[in-house]
């Protein structure tokens, strides 16, 4: 496989609140190769967004803080780099788009204003050149009448068009990696498909890696090559999209996939995983999913399972896979907690 451009190693981001320390992201390790589309899936509050904000070093602090691990971007550890260096990286080498296209643009300025501003942060070009580039970018993301739209205000555009503009801004400096935090959640299904298509095209053309954060397995199936499933701040399963969707290993992933409505089956009550996600807290004993797991046994409630290697890059944080390959102990889980 091609070179790894982004590698999270044992990344831990904790929030220090009035109710104590909360490990929102707990020893997460993720690799993204050049030009690859990796999905992070999980329900609300599982630490997906905090992971992405940690990469950008945009965790609101206080209360949040990266307490351990490395974020290696092309060999450089972002967790230790200066804010000045980060400002050069953000938007230039790593870009990010957000969930809410309706509020991601400043309502007071025209689209052009905001695009030109973003371009001129990282490139020494004149306003005129920036404007030309912006128009080209708008055309590339499929906005009709780009020459007029550039002088319009955000409120004059629909949600889908605004998300296109956001993507245009994010891609304008040709970043190595695009972090997309639920880019299609706020859009309706047809627009969703268009935005995903657009992201795939840009991914093909420029070899931009994409880290796609979503709770929608449909989106994952559509665009991702590899998937990381997160639960309560931890990675619980990792594999290729095909493997995860066809043959989920972790009981949580199995539950997720079982709870999807299926086209060919008669309308029935959908399956749901009993219980709710436990709030992440320090010093939790045992598997985080144990209380909701149908296949939990005693050990699950006492010992924190590691991320067991099943084969190749396939990993699952479940004791069911412990005995099968005893040697494949993931160092992520064994190193920190003593």
């Amino acid at each position, binding site marked *: 496989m091609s070179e790894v451009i982004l590698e999270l190693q044992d990344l831990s981001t904790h929030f220090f609140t009035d109710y104590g320390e909360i490990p929102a992201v707990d020893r997460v390790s993720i690799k993204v190769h050049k030009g690859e589309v990796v999905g992070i899936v999980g329900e609300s509050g599982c630490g997906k967004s905090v992971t992405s904000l940690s990469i*950008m070093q945009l965790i609101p602090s206080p209360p949040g803080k990266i307490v351990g691990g490395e974020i290696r971007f092309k060999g450089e550890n972002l967790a230790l780099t200066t804010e000045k260096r980060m400002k050069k990286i*953000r*938007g230039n080498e790593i870009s990010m788009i*957000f969930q809410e296209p309706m509020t991601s*643009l400043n309502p007071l300025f025209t689209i052009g204003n905001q695009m030109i501003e973003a371009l001129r942060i990282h490139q020494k070009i004149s306003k005129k050149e920036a404007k030309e580039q912006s128009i080209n970018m708008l055309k590339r993301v499929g906005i*009709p009448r780009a020459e007029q739209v550039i002088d*319009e205000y955000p409120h004059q555009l*629909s949600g889908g068009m605004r998300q296109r503009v956001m993507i245009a801004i994010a891609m304008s400096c040709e970043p190595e990696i695009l972090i997309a935090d639920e880019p299609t959640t706020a859009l309706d299904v047809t627009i969703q498909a268009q935005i995903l298509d657009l992201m795939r095209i840009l991914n093909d053309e420029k070899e931009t890696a994409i880290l796609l954060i979503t709770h929608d397995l449909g989106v994952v199936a559509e665009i991702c090559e590899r998937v990381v499933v997160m639960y309560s701040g931890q990675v619980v399963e990792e594999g290729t999209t095909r493997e995860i969707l066809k043959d989920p290993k972790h009981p949580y992933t199995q539950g997720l996939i079982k709870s999807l409505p299926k086209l060919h089956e008669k309308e029935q009550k959908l399956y749901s995983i009993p219980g709710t996600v436990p709030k992440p807290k320090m010093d939790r004993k045992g598997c985080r999913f144990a209380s909701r797991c149908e296949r939990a046994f005693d050990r699950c409630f006492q010992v924190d399972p590691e991320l067991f290697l099943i084969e190749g890059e396939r990993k699952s944080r479940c004791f069911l896979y412990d005995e099968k390959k005893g040697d494949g102990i993931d160092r992520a889980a064994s190193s920190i907690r003593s």
Partner: protein
Amino acid sequence: MGTSKIKKHAEQQANPMNLEEIELEEQEAISPWKDTFKRLRKNRFAIIGFTIILFFILLGLLAPVLSSYTYEEQNLANRLHPPSEEYWLGADHIGRDIFTRIAYGARVSLQVGFFAVTGALVFGTLLGILAGYFGRWIDMLISRIFDILLAFPSILLAIAIVAILGPSLENALIAIAIVNIPIFGRLVRSKVISLREEEYIMAAKAQGMKSGRILFHHILPNSIAPIIVQATLSFGTAILEAAALGFLGLGVQPPTPEWGQMLADSRDFIQLAPWTLFAPGISIMLVVLGFNLIGDGLRDALDPKMKH
């Protein structure tokens, strides 16, 4: 003839891009400021406010043209002269023309209002932005200073400041500005705190924008609406405070005419010559009313949610 329509429809269906184009065809880019101005013009009360203020501005500017007297010219023979052709609004206790003094007094009041509000606005906004955006100890420090300033009744604080600095127009102005700083500061701080959480600020950060740029290019323009409204309303209060200081003899020093001071000078003659009180009293009231009407109008016009 029907087929072409169907064909066109089918084309649109096949290319959803086209649909968006059609939807947006009619719109043209309207800047938020133009929009505000348009709505403001429709507000009758705001227009009345503007008219009142314009009247007093012209009165102040044209004072030497409108009156044949000077503001310090005394004519002791005409002491407490009632309003007449000679003295439009009457004469005061030492025979000065009240109309002339009101006109020149408008200059003083509007100046005090303008400079005091500008000063309070600039410093208050800066402090508010710093407190709101950077938070932590900076916020702690600035907010506590605001709390202390707000703990005093404003006029008492102004009196104290003038007492320290000495009574004069400039010092009254400085005192009023200081009294108004926390009002702007707290307003801006709260606005900045809510804007800081907006997604477009996060997006700006994610683009690698520097704090200064985010603050002055994205947060400040978005908090300008309440600042403008507050500035207009504060204009009225500042003039009122200046009049109060003048009434107490702590503002402009004689012989420069000032409405508050004119009230103070005439209050002994309230029974004998009430017109000496009417003119300055009504002037103060009208100017403050004018600014309040404009302020209310602006508030409605600047809030896009109030649109019909």
